[in-house]
């Protein structure tokens, strides 16, 4: 009777716990979605930044033309005259996801536009990501830690920064795919079920489709398998978790056109193959060990070791020779710059120039993961008591992601889920100890004899486990914590039973500690909401500033693109620096020369050289590329700091990397970059200077540049080969047209065709000879 009652009350408790955790998860999803809506409320439902515009354009094409045309799409509106094979160079996961969402919604008669679906894809998938974090942390520690980690991930600023409403970029779905793949891997590892291994491979396929960061998964999982083998935790479940993933995963990765044969040929994947071989060797060894007697096994070992070593060395030597024969040892440029942070700045200036690829500063850690930064070490310790396969994976994940986040600021995003998992575990364990102490002190005296009888058969671990699960379901670092009293009356006997084994803290300490932890959670929440609202919600296509006479809105970019789309021919080519390529093709619908994909360094160097050359030479270069309009971004009138003059030195460096007649010291006076009267003549005569500051002196009479905080050097000059056709309201975007060549050339002209190749043209150019750099 008593046993039946306790089992009934136990099921009731479980049911209540399940309903409670389900509703908490629902609320966490809603919060993850809503906290990312600040930009939509403050500005409008618009796509942000640069890369999302490309994804938006691709999604538009997908929804209009269907999957087959998208898969085979060759885009001739960018990288003129080279074009770009979109089908083969884009990670299709994001666009296919958004396209599928749009299709489904439209088929149930919810007529959302493609733009709305694109803008809101990221918040929806961040809700999914927090649910995936719950599942993953539940596998590692338990449901309480899972709820905590999910709540932390829903709000962590680092993830918010790349997934606000409007930030339609690969990371929006890739982080969800990452966490979900890890969850399925850990689930397979814990259960040993081939079904979850299949699901794991499919989730990995989705990750490969979504983001180039999938190489993190295919290197982390082999590292973990190796760690398990080396620490003696090999088990058949490990084999089932890893081996099918490698085979299926490699095949599925090779299916994606962007990856293709790189899945078997680049060094980024070799770790998985190496560990694949190692795990087979280990599995064979264990199998034979099971077959033979110990003494026979020793004989076998000595025999095999001597023969096998020779074979192993031979194969390894061949492999090393193969890999060493390629100049980058088989790694791609971006991966190499992760392993050797100085690589990019030495060899590939384009990778070094992207602001997201710089190492982060120390304050950015506190800004991006806030309180979690010092909860992570506590979580690492909690993972060691006790250490299981899953918790060793979590420790490995956090350690590697901390290293990579230190190399590139963009990879703080990969650190965020790991930090949330660790902090969730730490907080959950801490709450566990404190509430257990409180319960013991409040109720430890009263014992129920019937309960005692029912529980004597339990093994001690069951006690600890069931008690923990009861407590942890209720505990999380919520802004409002209460309602533990409901639980208190139900399990006093177990508390008394386990108090011999577990340490218990004094009552006052526990109460104050719980209160302080809740306060910590409150600070975290306040910081996250502030970061989401103030720091990460700017669409950067629309700028605002507050002054004494109210709010100013700078909509110059869209003004310029609208002008381009209404006042130029459809086939006109527009040249600008590569930052604005995606936006120009998406919003202005004009062909551009270079864009943010930056796959062709020489083409970008050509544009950079043109911007750094005097007017005539620049006109020649642009004319050879059929360019009609040139677009520059200028922030000197309003104080917009990310304009082309500030980026100009990168143009010089990249151009100089391919065309040696452009030398960076020519543009610097005493090693300093200046545009005032002390600037070098090369700088004052280059195209970028002229196009940015043409007629600038007319604005205030002195030509005071608000970004560089000086007056400009050359104030009154005319343009000979370009004419200004449009300048936006705040002078932020300036569009110039190439003047057609004159019909009649005055004076003597030397029509000598010089046979010199491009890279060896001399730096001195005479004014009358037409030195076309392409002849």
């Amino acid at each position, binding site marked *: 009777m008593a046993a039946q009652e306790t089992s009934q009350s136990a099921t009731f408790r479980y049911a209540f716990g399940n309903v409670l955790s389900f509703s908490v998860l629902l609320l966490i999803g809603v919060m993850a979605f809503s906290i990312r809506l600040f930009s939509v409320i403050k500005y409008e439902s618009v796509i942000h930044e640069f890369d999302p515009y490309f994804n938006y354009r691709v999604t538009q094409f997908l929804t209009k033309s269907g999957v087959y045309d998208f898969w085979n799409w060759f885009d001739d509106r960018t990288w003129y005259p080279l074009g770009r094979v979109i089908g083969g160079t884009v990670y299709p996961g994001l666009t296919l996801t958004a396209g599928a969402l749009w299709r489904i919604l439209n088929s149930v008669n919810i007529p959302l536009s493609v733009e709305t679906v694109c803008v809101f894809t990221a918040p929806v998938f961040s809700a999914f990501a927090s649910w995936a974090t719950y599942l993953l942390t539940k596998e590692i520690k338990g449901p309480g830690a899972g709820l905590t980690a999910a709540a932390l991930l829903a709000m962590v600023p680092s993830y918010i920064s790349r997934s606000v409403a409007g930030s339609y970029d690969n990371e929006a779905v890739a982080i969800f795919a990452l966490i979900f793949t890890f969850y399925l891997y850990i689930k397979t590892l814990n259960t*040993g079920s081939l079904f979850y291994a299949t699901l794991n491979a499919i989730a990995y396929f989705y990750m490969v489709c979504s983001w180039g960061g999938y190489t993190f998964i295919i290197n982390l999982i082999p590292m973990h398998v190796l760690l398990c083998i080396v620490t003696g935790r090999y088990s058949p479940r490990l084999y089932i978790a890893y081996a099918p993933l490698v085979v*299926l995963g490699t*095949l599925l990765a090779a299916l994606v056109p962007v990856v293709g044969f790189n899945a078997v040929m680049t060094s980024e994947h070799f770790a998985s193959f190496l560990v694949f071989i190692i795990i087979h060797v280990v*599995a064979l060894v264990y199998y034979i060990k099971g077959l*033979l007697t110990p003494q026979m096994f020793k004989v*076998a070992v000595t025999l095999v070791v001597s023969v096998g070593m020779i074979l192993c060395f031979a194969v390894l030597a061949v492999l090393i020779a193969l890999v060493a024969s390629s100049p980058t040892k088989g790694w791609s440029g971006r991966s190499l710059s992760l392993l050797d942070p100085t690589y990019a700045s030495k060899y590939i200036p384009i990778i070094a120039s992207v602001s997201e690829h710089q190492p982060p500063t120390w304050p950015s850690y506190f800004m991006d993961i806030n309180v979690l930064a010092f909860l992570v070490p506590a979580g690492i310790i909690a993972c060691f008591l006790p250490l299981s396969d899953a918790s060793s994976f979590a420790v490995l994940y956090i350690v590697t992601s901390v290293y990579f986040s230190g190399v590139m600021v963009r990879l703080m995003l990969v650190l965020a889920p790991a930090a949330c998992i660790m902090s969730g575990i730490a907080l959950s364990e801490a709450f566990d100890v404190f509430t257990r102490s409180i319960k013991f002190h409040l109720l430890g005296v009263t014992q129920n004899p019937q309960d005692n009888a029912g529980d004597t058969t339990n093994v001690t671990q069951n006690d600890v486990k069931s008690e923990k699960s009861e407590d942890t379901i209720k505990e999380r670092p919520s802004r409002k914590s209460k309602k533990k009293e409901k639980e208190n009356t139900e399990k006093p006997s177990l508390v008394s039973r386990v108090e011999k084994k577990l340490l218990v803290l004094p009552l006052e300490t526990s109460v104050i500690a719980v209160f302080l932890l809740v306060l910590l959670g409150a600070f975290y929440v306040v910081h996250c909401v502030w970061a989401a609202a103030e720091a990460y919600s700017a669409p950067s296509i629309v700028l605002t500033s507050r002054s004494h006479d109210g709010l100013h809105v700078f909509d110059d970019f869209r003004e310029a693109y609208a002008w381009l789309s209404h006042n130029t021919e459809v086939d006109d080519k527009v040249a600008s620096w590569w930052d604005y390529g995606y936006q120009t093709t998406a919003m202005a619908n004009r062909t551009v020369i270079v864009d943010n994909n930056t796959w062709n360094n020489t083409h970008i160097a050509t544009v950079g050289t043109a911007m750094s050359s005097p007017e005539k030479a620049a006109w020649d270069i642009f004319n050879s590329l059929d360019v009609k309009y040139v677009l520059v971004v200028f922030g000197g009138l309003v104080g917009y700091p990310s304009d082309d003059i500030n980026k100009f030195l990168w143009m010089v460096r990249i151009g100089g990397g391919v065309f040696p007649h452009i030398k960076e010291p020519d543009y610097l006076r005493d090693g300093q970059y200046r545009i005032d009267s002390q600037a070098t003549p090369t700088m004052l005569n280059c195209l970028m200077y002229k196009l940015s500051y043409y007629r600038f002196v007319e604005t205030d009479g002195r030509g005071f540049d608000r970004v560089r905080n000086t007056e400009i050097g050359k104030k009154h000059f005319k343009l000979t080969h370009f004419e200004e056709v449009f300048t936006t309201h705040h002078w932020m975007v300036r569009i110039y047209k190439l003047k057609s060549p004159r019909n009649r050339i005055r004076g003597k002209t030397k029509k000598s065709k010089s046979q010199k190749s491009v890279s060896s043209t001399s730096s001195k150019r005479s004014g009358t000879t037409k030195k076309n750099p392409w002849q």
Partner: protein
Amino acid sequence: MGRSATTKDAHALFHSLRSAYAATPNQLKIIDLYILFAVVTAVIQVAYMAIVGSFPFNSFLSGVLSCVGTAVLAVSLRIQVNKDNKEFKDLPPERAFADFVLCNLVLHLVIVNFLG
């Protein structure tokens, strides 16, 4: 002297391996035969590629990986069905076989797609 000792050891090892393996149940021996067949097919394919050349590479890759994949999946099935494995004693062998079939379906769908 050492030579004969090692060869004697090798013989003894070989015999004990053989006798221990003969004791495995027939079910598992069938699976082992299937694994051997898959591996031999993979080796034949690699040898063919070495003679004829690797174009088209995707067909070669999908062929070899299908053999390796079925071998790996068969090993996983053997692990789950083997009665000596205490970790899997709660798993009914029908469930293990159903998982095996599902995983093979996914694998072969991908193979056929990638074969070209």
